[in-house]
């Protein structure tokens, strides 16, 4: 394909996204087919193969769910903000729901979120945002790391910092962490759809906030979100 034949603008993004989705689905489908082929062989542990096949189907379902969710967010069919939600109870809820996984991954969970700090997003969206960030740390931070959620009020904004002091990522990968399907784990040894952080960025943007990330190998990963705080009713 020559440079002139390359699709441009929105069409280019659409084509690129379709190709990426196809590629991402092809991998678990190939693994599933391989597992089913193996199950036909004599003397294999069919039960174990079925369990592995189920895991592949779960992964594909998660991928499709994430794609649909991101698509609905982008089309405005899924509303991110309907007023404000208190942050602290939802941080606790996400920690509680993932306590077992964190223990298994030897990931410490800490929060410093004062009562009364509110963010402009629906509870469901806040749970998705916090859940995706914790999921990311559970997969990539490594044993012995600590996941921290810190929030404070700065003027008319809420600053939400979510970090871990784990393995981190190569500094050259940091600017790409919010990209769809980007995974710093290029060998794909960990599971995940590669859409979690793209969804996080979209939620924060739809709530009129900004999202930044920094980190380096061996120095953990730090996300910083700045969101509008409630203001008075006075217009002028």
């Amino acid at each position, binding site marked *: 394909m020559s440079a002139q034949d390359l699709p441009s603008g929105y069409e280019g993004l659409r084509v690129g996204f379709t190709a990426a989705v196809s590629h991402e689905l092809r991998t678990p489908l190939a693994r599933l087919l391989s597992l089913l082929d193996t199950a036909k062989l004599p003397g294999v542990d069919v039960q174990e193969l079925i369990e592995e096949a189920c895991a592949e189907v779960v992964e594909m379902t998660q991928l499709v769910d994430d794609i649909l969710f991101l698509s609905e967010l982008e089309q*405005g069919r899924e*509303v991110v*903000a309907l*007023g404000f939600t208190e942050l602290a109870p939802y941080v606790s809820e996400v920690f509680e729901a993932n306590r077992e996984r964190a223990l298994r991954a030897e990931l410490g969970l800490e929060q410093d979120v004062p009562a009364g700090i509110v963010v402009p997003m629906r509870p469901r969206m806040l749970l998705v945002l916090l859940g995706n960030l914790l999921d990311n740390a559970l997969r990539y931070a490594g044993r012995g790391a600590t996941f921290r959620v810190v929030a404070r009020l700065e003027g008319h904004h809420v600053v939400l910092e979510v970090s871990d002091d784990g393995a981190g990522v190569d500094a050259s990968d940091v600017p790409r962490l919010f990209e769809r399907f980007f995974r710093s784990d290029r060998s794909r040894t960990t599971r995940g759809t590669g859409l979690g952080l793209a969804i996080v960025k979209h939620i924060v943007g739809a709530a009129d906030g900004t999202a930044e990330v920094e980190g380096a190998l061996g120095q953990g990963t730090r996300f910083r979100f700045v969101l509008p705080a409630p203001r008075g009713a006075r*217009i*002028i």
Partner: protein
Amino acid sequence: MPRDVFHEQLERLEAAIQEQGQLVLRALRSSVNALHRRDSGLADEVIAFDDEIDRRYHGLQQGIEGLLALQTPVAVDLRLVLAMLHVNLHLERMGDHCVTIAKLTKLSQSLTSDPSLVAGFEDVAVRAEEMIRVALASFATRDVARAEMLVDLDELIDRANRRVVSHVLDLGGDAALREWGLRMIIVSRCLERIGDHAVDIGEQTAYLVTGEFREFTDASHGRD
């Protein structure tokens, strides 16, 4: 107060009107999502969110009253202030209709539903959203021709509303389904009224630009 400060305040009020329109769009989308998914929690969020819409409505109202009292605007400035007064009210009413849809969603949780009718509401809601966007954009750009397009868009919603009534009448003898259907007629009516309010905002655009108020269609005489 210097005139440039006055015009800054006018601009701020108009920006706040546009923001209010975006909030109403969120309330409408969420109320229809709650209905479609039978999501009582989301319906509660829509009902609670109306407090925010009302709070902004009162803030805008006070801002407009302040300008009228302190600046005594004239000519096109006066028309803009008066038009914003009306647009603010229409947006607040749209928010109230979203609350009604949310409340009916909660009331209908335990009743048998007809998925094909609910799917039809999704189409009507998309049209209503489009009407709100057109109404806000034509007001912002003072585009009377675009505002007049709202009449045709509204006719589509009116027709859909009439079809809903026919559909409900055909639901048959299941008492729970009939009860659900009667509530859905009110949902349909709310969506239809949201379309009417969008047309009313369009009429304010025409008033703002031409200095003369006229209703776009005679049909509005029959509205509540």
